[in-house]
């Protein structure tokens, strides 16, 4: 069971309550919530906010692939996964990503939660533009997405 969405921050905020509702079930004994939030410092610069950009369709495709891999690679069959990533301008402390996972047991919940965030970092086309106290802003460098063969 997967919920995957890119949320335009101009339309709504992402919140943990929707994640809680989605993953809550007596089928699962372990639930982990991961949130990423906007930090006030990066590379010795004072950050005041971040603009997130996204190729929405490709991001959702990557979320689906990562979810399916949990079964094929990690052999975690019974799982509920909620992933939302923000798009647009976020202030300090605001949530950029929520990953909620529910599994039968804690071992697989911890493994799955970590797997999802690490794969998103490598494979989901999302970009950050940091804004600083001196009114400057910079796109963060990032890493090349993996090229697929045709």
């Amino acid at each position, binding site marked *: 069971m997967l919920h995957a969405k890119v949320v335009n921050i101009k339309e709504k905020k992402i919140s943990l309550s929707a994640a809680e509702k989605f993953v809550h079930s007596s089928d699962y004994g372990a639930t982990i919530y991961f949130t990423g939030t906007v930090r006030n410092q990066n590379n010795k610069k004072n950050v005041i906010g971040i603009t997130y*950009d996204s190729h929405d369709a490709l991001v959702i495709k990557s979320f689906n692939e990562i979810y399916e891999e949990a079964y094929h690679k990690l052999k975690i069959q019974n799982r509920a996964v909620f992933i939302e990533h923000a798009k647009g301008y976020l202030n300090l402390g605001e949530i950029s990503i929520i990953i909620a996972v529910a599994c039968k047991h804690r071992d697989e919940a911890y493994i799955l939660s970590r797997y999802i965030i690490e794969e998103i970092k490598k494979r989901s086309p999302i970009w950050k533009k940091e804004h600083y106290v001196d009114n400057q802003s910079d796109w963060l460098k990032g*890493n090349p997405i993996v090229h*697929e063969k045709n």
Partner: protein
Amino acid sequence: MKIKIELFGVSREFSKNNLLEFEINNNSTIKDIRNKIINYLDQNFNGNKNFKKIVNSSAFCTENNNIVSDNYKITKNEKIAIIPPIGGG
């Protein structure tokens, strides 16, 4: 034929329209598109080295949301997205 390049992330700095348009030959490949963008940067951004580096390390994505290699042949007037190095979360 005409091709549209949709810009994302840092490549949005290449144009205020968030889009580049080029006239290309039939059977052009992604490699040709990459070279078109490099030429565009030479002409419009004085060969900005950082921008050119970004183009060389970018992937490209079709309208069907597939990441394609440099050999991919563009056979119709499709829209291609440039995918610069990523880093969400």
